[in-house]
């Protein structure tokens, strides 16, 4: 970092802040007496809540066992008529054993217009938040870089219910690494910009399908 010159805007702004607050009293301490979660500690109910909240924001939710997963993925892609599937590194090979669609890899990294031409993208996730109906991607294994889940119009996301579901936002943050780029997704792209009326489907994937496995 270069040392800014005296009289630079940096020094001026910092000096103005110091002058502005020098006589101010120390504000009261932050009490974190709000809830860590608004839900009882019951994994089955948490899963139901996650499914309900995802669906409430127009994500399509599927639930299955690990053994059923390849067939479920195959059926979803077939019903949608997808011919190409973007598969980031780290997606388990057996997830794909129930489909014959053409797989597209991000090696070398695909240009945006190539991503735009892909029918669907399949990923895992870092975790899911039940209270808000949110899935979190952090570019970890099986998720790929951020553009992969943004440009294609259909995002299929697999959540492992055994270890990837938390109840609330306060429970989610400590499990996430701030140095990684993150995308929190709560339902498909939407807008309320016309008459404050919520409409799904603008720039991100217009269809979000979430498979809860376990």
């Amino acid at each position, binding site marked *: 970092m270069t040392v800014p010159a005296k009289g630079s805007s940096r020094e001026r702004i910092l000096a103005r802040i110091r002058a502005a*607050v020098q006589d101010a009293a120390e504000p009261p301490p932050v009490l974190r007496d709000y809830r860590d979660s608004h839900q009882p500690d019951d994994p089955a109910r948490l899963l139901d809540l996650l499914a309900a*909240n995802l669906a409430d924001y127009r994500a399509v939710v599927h639930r299955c066992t690990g053994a059923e997963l390849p067939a479920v993925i195959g059926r979803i892609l077939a019903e949608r008529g997808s011919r190409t599937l973007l598969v980031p590194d780290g997606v388990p090979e057996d997830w794909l054993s129930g489909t014959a669609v053409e797989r597209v890899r991000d090696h070398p990294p695909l240009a945006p217009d190539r991503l735009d031409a892909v029918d669907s993208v399949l990923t895992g996730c870092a975790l899911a938040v039940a209270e808000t109906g949110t899935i979190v991607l952090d570019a970890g294994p099986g998720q790929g*870089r951020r*553009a992969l889940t943004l440009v294609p119009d259909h995002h299929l996301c697999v959540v492992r219910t055994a270890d990837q579901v938390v109840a609330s936002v306060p429970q989610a943050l400590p499990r996430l690494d701030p140095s990684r780029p993150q995308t929190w997704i709560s339902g498909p792209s939407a807008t309320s910009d016309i008459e*404050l009326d919520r409409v799904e489907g603008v*720039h991100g994937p217009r269809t979000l399908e979430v498979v809860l496995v376990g």
Partner: protein
Amino acid sequence: MSDTYLGMPSFPQAKASTRDTRLRANLTHATRTIRDKRARAVAELDDWAQLREAGKRIKDRTLRHLDDHLVQLEQNVTAAGGTVHWAADAAEANRIVADLVKATGEREVVKVKSMATQEIELNEALAAEGITAYETDLAELIVQLGEDRPSHILVPAIHRNRGEVRDIFAAKMGEWGRPAPEGLGDSPAELAEAARLHLREKFLRAKVGISGANFMVAETGTLVVVESEGNGRMCLTLPETLISVVGIEKVLPTWRDLEVFLQLLPRSSTAERMNPYTSFWTGTSDGDGPRNFHLVLLDNGRTDTLADEVGRQALRCIRCSACLNVCPVYERAGGHAYGSVYPGPIGAILTPQLRGTASAVDASLPFASTLCGACYEVCPVAIDIPEVLVHLREQVVERDGPGHRTERAVVRAGSWLLDHPAALGAVERWASRTRGLHPRRLPTAVARAWTDSRDLPELPEAPFRDWWRKSR
């Protein structure tokens, strides 16, 4: 509305907008819809009061040590591969951004909706340098294509109904890029689809993105953008260079602090449990997103606001716009009347502090309120907007308008009279004796307007104290 001067500046532009019945219908429909939804979303959390208090205190403590948090933020953004710039005012911020864009050799940029860049009028500054900025938020697109001004923090085109949006898209999209589809209808879904098609080609070829941020985390160097449509993700992810212009008050000390604000903001603004997309990034990441990241920290009046003991609480604002949606004045006057990118109750306390009260509109803003307090009640960081309004009114009055001089003289004379019972008695007796000569309406244009719709009180035959002495 009459032109009566009652010692407070009138709210000049509201005079026209309150007569615009279509505008009022659009606003009433939209604000009522969101009001009820917000109340339901907030009611889902039984610890809302605790979250609100925590949000308030985190912001207050951050502002008290803002210098330390900004220096720490700068260190961590820099360590993560970003470059931090400091801009004392709008002109400096615009120059920094224009130079950064020119250095890339590009002539167009895609923009995420950002209050800070609107505040500094970045698009106009870039245009003057031959750079075209494409707004990508649906409402911002409506405003840009309609050569209009934003009228709401969250939904800048709230003053437009679906039919108007359709007409703007059909007429103007072709001038900016891909034209609207033939026979475009006016359902929000069709309009959103038209925007998707129009903007997609711009996203896919964009080399420079410009954003603001909802939060910046000092201890990690992370920036956070909260959005719905995915245009934010496009601008933050696809370009090679990302420039974020962010007000210095947006910093939070810790990663954990987000647990409060990510609960408060979506429920207060769009009335959702969580908004569809939230992006977090820390500097640059290899092979994921922009290779160059610039953060421009903006003062532009914020340190002046910070210096005001009462007014500094306005810097807690997280731009949710809940206060606009509940405000009876906003609902009737509309956002344009506030003459600033920050309309509604928060604008009425923020704009005069950021810009001063030199202009007639800005001096009128602290008076553009009934002090009903609904804004304070819904504010997720408990900004006591009525308190600041009254405080700013004092400041405007201190500068001495003519009406206030008269008022002060009248009050002084009244105080003297009440302090001198003999004189008071004499005046009262004289007033009672001349009852027959009292006019029914007051003279002079100003006073006459007052009695146009009000009766003057009738004086009794004798002053009360004389009557009391006699009848006791």
